[in-house]
C-alpha cells in the first residue's frame, strides 16, 4: 500500500475560458521531495495553490493524508507555503515573522522563544531575531520565509519558485541547503519551478506539466535518460531529434530509417516496434563520441561536417551538419584538455557514434 500524503484525483481548474489544470490524477509519497516542473502557464502554480487552499478545484478532489480538502479553508489545512516573493511581513521583525503562525499553538513564551531559536539555527541565521524585515537581503528573507513555515511542522511544505529571485551562485548554494534540510527534517516538500536543472538537482520525483496537463512523472534520472514523450525529452536538457520510421525488427533490436542517419539499429522498446510506425529517435548531445576518421561501421554512427562551436567554460557545444537534415546536430563535450582545439576547425568531416543505451525512441504523431 502506498503511503500517499497528497492525492490528486481528477483535479481540474479553469479561469474563464482557459483550462489551467486538466484532470490531474497522481499521488505524492510521504517524505518525498516532489517537484512540479514546466514552462510558465503550464498550471504548476495553480496546482500548488489548490493544495494550499487559495484556489478551489472546479472538478475532482485533493486529499491530504487521506482527508478531502475542498471545503477546508487555507488556514485550517496541515500544509504551509513559502511564497515566490517570500511575503515577509514588513511591520514585524524576524522573530515576529517566524512566530506569526504560532499564536494558537498553546506554547508558553519561553517554549516559543526556544523553538524560534532552534529554527533560526536550522536556517543558519542564528541571532537574527531582532532584525527588521527591511534589513534582510533576498536570501535571508527566503530563509525566514522557510523558517516561518517550518516552525508549524506542516505535513507538506509548499514552495512556489522560491529560488527564482536569487543570483546563480546563491541559488545553487540554496539548492543544496534546501535538499539537505528536507532530508534532515523528513517533511514532504512540494516544489514548483520552471528551471529544469533545479528540479533535477533537488527532486526525488518530478512531474512535468504543459498547458494544464501532467505529461510525465518520474525520477530525475528516468526523466532525463528515458523520457516518454517528445515534449518531456525536449523540455529537459537539450535533445537531438531525428524523424524516423520503423522499417523492421531483428530480435531485441528494431531497424529504423531516420532522416540524416539513414538506416540504423536501435534497442527495441515496448509499443514502438511495429513496422511503418512513426517515431522520433532522440539522442542527448553528450552521448556522442566524435571520430575524425571513418570508423567503418554504420551501426549507431552518423557522418557529417563540423560547423561552428560555442565555448562554455566547462564544456563546449559543437554543431555538426549532416545530409538530409537542415538543423545541425548538437554535440556537447567536456573540455578535458585545451587540445580539443582539433574540434574547432570547421568544415572538416566528422563521424559521431553512440551506444545503444543512449538512444530514446519516442512516439511521433
Amino acid at each position, binding site marked *: 500500500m502506498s503511503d500517499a500524503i497528497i492525492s490528486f484525483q481528477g483535479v481540474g481548474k479553469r479561469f474563464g475560458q482557459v483550462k489551467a489544470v486538466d484532470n490531474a490524477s497522481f499521488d505524492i509519497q510521504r517524505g518525498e521531495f516532489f517537484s512540479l516542473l514546466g514552462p510558465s502557464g503550464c498550471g504548476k502554480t495553480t496546482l500548488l495553490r489548490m493544495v494550499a487552499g487559495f484556489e478551489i478545484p472546479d472538478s475532482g478532489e485533493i486529499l491530504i493524508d487521506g482527508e478531502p480538502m475542498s471545503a477546508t479553508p487555507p488556514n485550517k489545512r496541515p500544509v504551509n507555503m513559502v511564497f515566490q*516573493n517570500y511575503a515577509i511581513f514588513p511591520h514585524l521583525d524576524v522573530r515576529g515573522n517566524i512566530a506569526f503562525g504560532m499564536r494558537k499553538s498553546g506554547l508558553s513564551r519561553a517554549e516559543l522563544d526556544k523553538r524560534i531559536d532552534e529554527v533560526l539555527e536550522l536556517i543558519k541565521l542564528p541571532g537574527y531575531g531582532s532584525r527588521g524585515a527591511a534589513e534582510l537581503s533576498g536570501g535571508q528573507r527566503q530563509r525566514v520565509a522557510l523558517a516561518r513555515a517550518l516552525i508549524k511542522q506542516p505535513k507538506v511544505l509548499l514552495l512556489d519558485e522560491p529560488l527564482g529571485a536569487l543570483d546563480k551562485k546563491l541559488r545553487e548554494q540554496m539548492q543544496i541547503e534546501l535538499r539537505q534540510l528536507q532530508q534532515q527534517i523528513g517533511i514532504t516538500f512540494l516544489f514548483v519551478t520552471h528551471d529544469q536543472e533545479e528540479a533535477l538537482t533537488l527532486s526525488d520525483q518530478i512531474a512535468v506539466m504543459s498547458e494544464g496537463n501532467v505529461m510525465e512523472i518520474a525520477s530525475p534520472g528516468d526523466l532525463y535518460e528515458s523520457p516518454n514523450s517528445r515534449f518531456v525529452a525536449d523540455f529537459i536538457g537539450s535533445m537531438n531529434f531525428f524523424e524516423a520510421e520503423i522499417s523492421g525488427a531483428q530480435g531485441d533490436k528494431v531497424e529504423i530509417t531516420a532522416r540524416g542517419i539513414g538506416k540504423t539499429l536501435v534497442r527495441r522498446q515496448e509499443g514502438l516496434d511495429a513496422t511503418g510506425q512513426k517515431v522520433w529517435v532522440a539522442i542527448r548531445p553528450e552521448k556522442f563520441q566524435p571520430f575524425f576518421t571513418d570508423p567503418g561501421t554504420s551501426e549507431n554512427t552518423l557522418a557529417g561536417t563540423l560547423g561552428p562551436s560555442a565555448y562554455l567554460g566547462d564544456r563546449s557545444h559543437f554543431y555538426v551538419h549532416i545530409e538530409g537534415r537542415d538543423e545541425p546536430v548538437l554535440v556537447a563535450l567536456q573540455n578535458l584538455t585545451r587540445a580539443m582545439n582539433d574540434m574547432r576547425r570547421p568544415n572538416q568531416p566528422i563521424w559521431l557514434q553512440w551506444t545503444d543505451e543512449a538512444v530514446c525512441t519516442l512516439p511521433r504523431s
Partner: protein
Amino acid sequence: MSKRRPWWRPSGFMIYAVIYLTFIYLPVLFLPLFSFNNSKYIAFPLKGFTLKWYEQMINSPDMLEALMNSVKVGITVAILSTMLGLLAAKAVTRYRLPGRGPVMGFIMVPLVIPGIILAISLLILITQVDIPLSLWTVGFSHMLLCTPFAMLVLISRMEGFDKSLEEAGLDLGESAWMTFWRVTFPIVLPGIVASLLLTFTISFDEFVLAFFLTSTDPTLPIYIWSSLRFPTKIPAVLALGATIFILSFVVVSFSEWFRRRGVKLESSSGI
C-alpha cells in the same frame, strides 16, 4: 540632467511657480490679515492690531454650536466612509470581479455630480419618504460624497501592498478576520489615517449638501454663509477662518509626520 542653478538665477519655471503660488495664497492670506485688523471694514489702510474679533468669535454660542455640529458630523462621516472605502478597496484590489469597471465608475459618481444636483435629489427622496431633515441626513449625504475619496486613497495604498502577505497570514493559520487585523490593518494604517483626515476635511468644509439637508442645526459652513450677510459679523468670521486654517495646517503636518514614520516595527514576536 542639468546642473543646479544658483538660487539667485531662477529658471522660468521657478518664476512661474512663485507667481502661481502667490496667486493662490494671496486671497487666502488676507483672511488672517484682516482678522487682526482693528476695523469693521475690510479695506486698506490697516487700522491697528487687535484680538477682539477672536474674542467675539469664542464668545459666540451660535458659532460654537455650529462648530460642534460640524465636528460631530465630520468624525462620524470620516469613520463610516473610511470603513466603506476600506471594504470596497479590499474587494476591488484582491478579488477578480466581473463588471468591476462599471461598478467602480458607479461608486465614483458623487465626484462628478454637481453638488446641487445631488443635494436636491436627496432632498426630494428624503422628504418623499417622510424622513425629517437633520444632521443625520447631512451626515448620510456627506458619507455618499466622501466614500469615493476614501476608496481612492485606500485603493492606492492597497495596490502597493503585496497580496501574498495576506495569503501568508491565512496559510499560517489565521482566520480571515485575524489576518486583516494582524497583517492588512497595520500595513494599511497610514492610508486609513489619510482617508480619515481627508474625509473629515471634506465633510467639515462641505456647504451645499448641508445647506439643503439640514433643518435647524447648522453646520459651520452654514453658519458662515448666514454670517456673510451681516457686515458686522464678518471680521469674526474671518477670525474663524484663520483659526480653522491654522488648525488644519497643524493637523496635516502631524499626519504627514505620522505617515513618514512608515510602518512601525513591532518588537519581538508580534503576537
